[in-house]
């Protein structure tokens, strides 16, 4: 670069400076675009955060300010001191964690069988498992309502848990099968010849080396269960069984004016997913790329 500019000073310098100008313009354009995008993506979130610290009287203050004199943790304390709102969180954790455990165990068993056994009905069963993923929730809602009432599971944790297990199972089975397929069969075949039972092969040999796959499936399952709204709304009735997404809407309906508390609850309700995302980012991205971490 320097050698060239020494040999032909004038032409090289103008060409280089023109290139530098063009590169500078492209850079400015890029950062302008990036900033515009950041405002579009981030401003609503920033506003939610700032509103959750305002006094309710200042929510619609004119002109609006991101941070005004009313900054306090009072809206959060209001959420924490309301047993009903704390109950929504407890319910969400009970349901989402139970679903995650049940789905993982059932998907491990099924994934193991799909990956390691050949049997007559395998093809049909796997086609059904793939196919039911396309069934719209609204189609299942009406029969589910009837089934849950008939089974006495309406307005119970068990009703919601079994519902979410069924919703998350197809994807979980497909993911676990793919993960087991990626593990060499020699590992468990050697153990089998040594007289190990299928169960001890699965739990003692395959599960310990399948942790990354299980984390992906667990995150997906937890998120779907934590975020679900339609069935939580329809299959529960009383506050002591409502989950956070439904609770937020109820808070809006009852206390139409407590915007700051609703925003605080929204932030608190989003924290589990945010924390899981920050810890397990690469699993999320992997799951996303594979195709379905979104309700």
């Amino acid at each position, binding site marked *: 670069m320097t050698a060239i500019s020494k040999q032909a000073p004038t032409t090289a310098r103008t060409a280089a400076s023109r290139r530098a100008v063009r590169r500078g313009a*492209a*850079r400015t354009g*890029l950062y302008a*675009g*990036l900033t515009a*995008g*950041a405002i579009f*993506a981030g401003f*609503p*979130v920033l506003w*939610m955060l700032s509103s959750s610290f305002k006094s309710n009287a200042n*929510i*619609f203050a*004119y*002109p*609006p300010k991101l941070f005004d004199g009313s900054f306090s943790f009072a809206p959060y304390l209001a959420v924490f001191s309301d047993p009903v709102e704390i109950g929504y969180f407890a319910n969400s954790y009970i349901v989402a964690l139970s679903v995650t455990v049940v789905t993982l165990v059932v*998907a491990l*068993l*099924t994934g*193991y069988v799909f990956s390691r056994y050949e*049997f007559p009905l*395998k093809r049909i069963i796997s086609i059904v498992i*793939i196919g*039911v993923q*396309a*069934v*719209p929730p*609204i*189609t*299942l*809602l*009406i*029969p589910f*309502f*009837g*089934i849950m009432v008939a089974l006495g599971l309406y307005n119970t944790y068990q009703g919601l848990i079994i519902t979410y297990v069924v919703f998350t*199972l*197809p994807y979980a089975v497909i993911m676990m099968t793919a993960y087991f397929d990626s593990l060499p069969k*020699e590992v468990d075949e*050697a153990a089998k010849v*040594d007289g190990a039972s*299928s169960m001890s092969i699965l739990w003692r040999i395959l599960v310990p080396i399948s942790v990354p796959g299980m984390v992906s499936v667990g995150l997906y399952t937890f998120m779907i269960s934590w975020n679900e*709204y*339609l069935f939580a709304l*329809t299959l529960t009735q009383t506050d002591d069984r409502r989950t956070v*997404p439904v609770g*937020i*809407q109820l808070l*809006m309906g009852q206390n139409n004016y407590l915007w700051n508390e609703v925003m605080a609850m929204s932030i608190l*309700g*989003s924290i589990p*997913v*945010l924390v899981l*995302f920050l810890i397990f980012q690469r699993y999320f991205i992997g799951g*996303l*790329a594979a*195709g*379905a971490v*979104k*309700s």
Partner: protein
Amino acid sequence: MTSSLSMAQNDQRKRAAAPAPRRHHRTLKERLEPYLLIAPTVLLILGLMVVPIAIVIGYSLYDNVVTNPNPVFVGAANYVTILTSPAFWGAAGNTLVFTVASVVAHMVIGMAFAMMLNSKTMARVPRAIFRAIYILPWIFTASVVAVLWRLLLDPSGVINYLLTSLGVVHDAVPWLGTASTALLAVTVINIWSGYPFFMISLLAGLQNVSTDLYEAARVDGAGFFRQFASVTLPALRPILYSMALLDLLWTTQQFTLIWATTGGGPLGATEMLSTFTYKLAFNSYQFSMASTSAVLVLAASLIVAVFYVRRQRKEAQ
């Protein structure tokens, strides 16, 4: 290498030593074992997916189920009623507009953001910061997104303040409460909440495009747009196609966002097939009509799903 070899020898020794009757017992047990292990999955999928679909199809063929103890079989009459109802077609039209606009915008914004993040002129730290900001909307569930945007779009909210200050609108507009703007408003909200899914997958895709291809295109004198059209787009087409179909499937099924912002109103301006079906069942207790609508939604979803599966299979080959 040596260990696997010795393992194979070990195999043979063990196999030879195993007593015959025990082996016979194991094969029988082994034949039953897979069925036993998949029983929970099969029972759950059968009982709570296949059976409910059969039930909802059955419901759609009777005059009125659930509320009427002795429903009468009416064949396709409910389908005729629904398919000739302007309310159904209104909801179908809204769903189509909402879905197509959302999917196209998700794709365009996801692509634009992914390309900006993938730009080589950016250092690692700003890239990580912008990436984190761009992923933000994805963290929030539809119920939270709905209350947040109700706050933002309120007549005395911050968006109306900015728009009136900039002179874009004269007076504050209740975006979600006005029949002519509500569909636009819910679509914008859905665009905001859904693009990160595209962005993340496209970013992963972009990082897999060989830089040699861009190098070669640049040597041939291709500018930015030519490179985009001849290198980037062809490389990302499989991802774009699959994601568009998935998004189409999910967006047509969107319920929460609509329900928690407008409830389908005002005056049906944002009524979607999902809210239409829900209201038939749980607001007016016409469970047979609701089931009919639900079966039609299922049929539409299956058509999209067939395209998706066909695409995946083609890719796998």
